[in-house]
C-alpha cells in the first residue's frame, strides 16, 4: 500500500499531468522538428527554404493551401492537423503521425496558430472558420463522369490541359501570391496530390480552391452568383478527375525487359504495337551531386518500353512535362527557355564483374555511352567520362519524338552491335546497366542541372524462352491425370 502510494507520488512529481493542448509543448516540438524548414519564427524561412519548391509555409500569414474553408479564409484546426499528420505528398513535408501522438500534434497546431494574430482575432469576434458544405457525393457513374468532363473542359482545361497532365494554355506563366512560379497539378499522378487524393480531398480542392494560388474556388457560396459551380457540379468534376487519376505510384522497375519481336521494331512512338508491353517506371531526382546542383526539378519519372529483333533495338521513353520547350513565346516573368531533353545512359562495354561505371555520367577509367535527344538539336551519341565531361561522338542514333498534351514520347533506335563511335554492343540474356536523365527546358534546366536516375538494368529477353517453361508444369498435370485414371480403373473393378 505504502509502496503504491509512493509510486503514485513519484509519478505525480515526475510526470505532471498537463493538457497537451497548449503551446509550450507545441513550441518544444516545433523547435526540435519543424524549424529546419519553417524557421525559428514560423516565417517559412528555415535553412532549407532556399532549396525547396514548393517553399515551406509561412505561418505568420495564416494562409493555408488545403482547407475545408473558403478560398482565402482561415483553416480549420483539423486542416492543419491533417497536413502535419499526413504530410503534403510530393513535397518535403512528411507525415508526422508515426513520430508524434494525437495530443502532440494538437499542441503543435495550437503553437503554429499562435504565429499569427488572425486566429485569436477571429475567435474574439466570434468569427471562427467554418467548413464549406459538401453536399451529397453522387455515384461516379458514366453519366456523372460525362457531365464532369464537360464542366472540366470549361473550368479546368485552360490550366490542367486536355489530358489532365497540366499542359493547358495558361500553365506556363502561373505564380502564387508570393511571386514564386507554380504549375497546375498533373491530375493523372494522384500520388503527388499535395492535399490527398481521396474523392473528398479532390472535391474540397475543386470547391474551395487553393488559397494563395491561381487555383480559384469553383463553388460560389453566394447564392446570387450564377457563374460558378454548384456543389453538385463540383462533385461531377470530382467524378471526372476520379476517372483519370492513378492513385498509387507505380512500383519502381528494377529491370527494363526488352521484348523480342520477329518482325520489325516499331519506328513510330505511337505504334499500337507498344501497347503489348507494360511500361517500366523509373523515378528521377534532382542532380544534387556535382557541379551546379539542381534542387528544383520538375521531372519526376520516366516510363520505358523496348523491343529488339535480330538487328535492332528500339527503346521508347515517355515522360510528363507541361510544356514543349523551347516555347515560341515565353512569358515575361519566366524568360528561361532551354530545350527539353532526355538521355539514356549505358556503360561503353557490358561490365564483366560487379563493377559498373559511376552512375552519374561515368568516369575517365570507366566511361559511359549516352544517347541524347534534345528538342533543338539532332539526336546524338556522347561518351561520358563524368557528368561535367562528356563528348559527342560520330555515332548515329535515330530518334522519333512526339509531344502531345503534356507527354513527351521519344523513340530511340540503333543497331544491336556497337563500335568505338556507337558504344555498347547489346547481348541477349545479359543484365546491362541503364540510367536515365531528363531536362525540363522551361524550368531552366541545362547542362548538369537536370533530373537523374541511379543505375537500373536492361535485359534482352531470350526469344526461345517461350515453350520450354511449360514442360515441367505440363508433366506435373499429366502425372496427376495418370493417378486419377488409376483410381477410376480401380473403382470400376470394385464395382
Amino acid at each position, binding site marked *: 500500500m505504502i509502496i503504491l502510494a509512493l509510486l503514485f507520488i513519484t509519478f505525480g512529481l515526475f510526470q505532471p499531468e498537463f493538457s497537451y493542448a497548449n503551446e509550450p509543448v507545441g513550441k518544444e516540438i516545433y523547435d526540435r522538428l519543424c524549424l529546419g524548414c519553417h524557421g525559428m519564427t514560423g516565417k517559412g524561412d528555415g535553412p532549407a527554404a532556399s532549396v525547396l519548391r514548393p517553399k515551406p509555409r509561412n505561418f505568420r500569414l495564416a494562409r493555408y493551401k488545403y482547407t475545408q474553408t473558403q478560398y482565402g479564409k482561415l483553416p480549420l484546426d483539423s486542416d492543419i492537423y491533417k497536413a502535419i499528420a499526413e504530410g503534403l505528398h510530393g513535397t*518535403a513535408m512528411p507525415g508526422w503521425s508515426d513520430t508524434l501522438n494525437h495530443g502532440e500534434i494538437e499542441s503543435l497546431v495550437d503553437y503554429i496558430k499562435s504565429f499569427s494574430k488572425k486566429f485569436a482575432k477571429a475567435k474574439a469576434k466570434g468569427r471562427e472558420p467554418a467548413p464549406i458544405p459538401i453536399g451529397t457525393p453522387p455515384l461516379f457513374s458514366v453519366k456523372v463522369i460525362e457531365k464532369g468532363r464537360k464542366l472540366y473542359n470549361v473550368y479546368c482545361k485552360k490550366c490542367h490541359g486536355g489530358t489532365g497532365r497540366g499542359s493547358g494554355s495558361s500553365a506556363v506563366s502561373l505564380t502564387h501570391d508570393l511571386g514564386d512560379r507554380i504549375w497546375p497539378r498533373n491530375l493523372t499522378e494522384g500520388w503527388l496530390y499535395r492535399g490527398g487524393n481521396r474523392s473528398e480531398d479532390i472535391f474540397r480542392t475543386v470547391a474551395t480552391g487553393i488559397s494563395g494560388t491561381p487555383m480559384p474556388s469553383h463553388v460560389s457560396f453566394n447564392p446570387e452568383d450564377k457563374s460558378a459551380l454548384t456543389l453538385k457540379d463540383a462533385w461531377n468534376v470530382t467524378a471526372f478527375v476520379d476517372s483519370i487519376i492513378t492513385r498509387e505510384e507505380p512500383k519502381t522497375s528494377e529491370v527494363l525487359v526488352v521484348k523480342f519481336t520477329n518482325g520489325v521494331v516499331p519506328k513510330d512512338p505511337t505504334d499500337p504495337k507498344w501497347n503489348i508491353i507494360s511500361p517500366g517506371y523509373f523515378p528521377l531526382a534532382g542532380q544534387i551531386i556535382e557541379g551546379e546542383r539542381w534542387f528544383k526539378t520538375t521531372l519526376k*519519372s520516366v516510363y520505358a518500353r523496348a523491343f529488339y529483333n535480330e538487328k535492332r533495338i528500339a527503346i521508347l521513353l515517355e515522360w510528363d512535362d507541361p510544356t514543349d520547350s523551347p516555347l515560341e513565346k515565353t512569358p515575361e516573368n519566366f524568360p528561361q527557355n532551354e530545350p527539353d531533353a532526355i538521355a539514356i545512359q549505358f556503360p561503353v562495354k557490358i561490365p564483366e564483374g560487379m563493377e*559498373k561505371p*559511376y552512375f552519374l555520367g561515368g568516369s575517365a577509367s570507366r566511361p559511359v555511352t549516352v544517347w541524347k535527344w534534345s528538342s533543338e538539336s539532332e539526336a546524338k551519341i556522347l561518351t561520358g567520362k563524368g557528368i561535367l565531361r562528356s563528348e559527342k561522338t560520330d555515332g548515329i542514333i535515330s530518334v522519333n519524338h512526339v509531344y502531345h498534351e503534356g507527354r513527351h514520347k521519344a523513340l530511340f533506335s540503333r543497331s544491336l552491335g556497337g563500335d568505338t563511335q556507337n558504344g555498347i554492343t547489346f547481348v541477349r540474356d545479359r543484365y546491362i546497366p541503364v540510367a536515365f536523365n531528363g531536362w525540363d527546358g522551361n524550368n531552366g534546366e541545362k547542362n548538369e542541372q537536370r533530373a537523374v536516375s541511379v543505375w537500373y538494368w536492361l535485359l534482352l529477353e531470350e526469344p526461345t524462352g517461350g515453350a520450354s517453361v511449360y514442360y515441367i*508444369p505440363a508433366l506435373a*498435370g499429366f*502425372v496427376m491425370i495418370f493417378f486419377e485414371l488409376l483410381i477410376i480403373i480401380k473403382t470400376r473393378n470394385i464395382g
Partner: protein
Amino acid sequence: MKIPGLIKSVVIIWAAWYGIVYLFTDLLGAPIPASVMKMYMFFIIIGVFMAFTADEETAEEIFGPFRRLLFDRSHRVLRSIVFIVIPPLVFMVTYEITRPTLDAPVELRAVHPAPPSSFMAFGKSFNMLTLENPYRSLERGKPDKFREAVNEGRTVYYTNCFFCHGDKLEGKGHFVKGFNNPAPANFREVGAIGQLQESFLFWRIAVGGPGLPNEGAPWASPMPVWKDFLTEDQIWKVILFLYDYTGHRPRTFGK
C-alpha cells in the same frame, strides 16, 4: 453437435497459420520470413496429423471423407468435378513456382565498409586512429557553445542532406524515390551511427559515394563528395547534429 475431424483439423491449421502471421506482423511489427513460416507450418501439420490419427476412430474422421470421395460410387459426380479441376490446378501452381523470373541480379554491397587508416581531404592527411570531433568536448565544457554548433549542423543538414536522408533522419527524404538504390542511411536506426565512431562519419561524408572502397559499390551511391561542397568545420557540426537529433552516442574506444 460434433464437428467432423477433417474440418476441425483444417480449422486448427488455418488458425495456427493466421495466428503466427498476426503475431509477427501486427504484434511484433516484423513480417515472418517465408522459410521460418514453412518450418512452423510443417511441424504444425505433422502435429495435427499425429493427434488426429492417434486412434482409429479419429483417423477414420480424417481419411474417411477422402476415401469415400475417391472410391464410393455414390460420389461419382463430385469426384468427376474434382478430377477435372485438379490437373489444371497442378499445372498452374507448378508454373508459378518454376516460371523464369526477370528479377534484378542480387548485388552485395557493404554498407559500412572498413575505412582506410588515413585519407586526404582539405589539403591535408587525416589519421583515422586519432581523429576526433573537435566540438565534442564542448558538450560538457561549454554547453551553450555546443548547442550553437549543433544548430549550425542543423543548417548544414537542411541545406544539403535532408533531400535524401529526410526530415526525420530516417532515410526517406523527398528525393528518395529516385535515389533508393542504394537506399540513403537511416540515422535513427539502432545499429547505424550509434555503432560508428565520429571519425568514420567524417571520412564517409568527406569522400562521399565515389570515395568508397570497391566493396561499398562506389559507382552506385548518389552520396556527393562533400569535401567539394562543405568545409571541415561544417562536416563536424553536421555530425554533432545527427547524434543530437537521434539521441545516439558516437562509439568511442575507452582510453
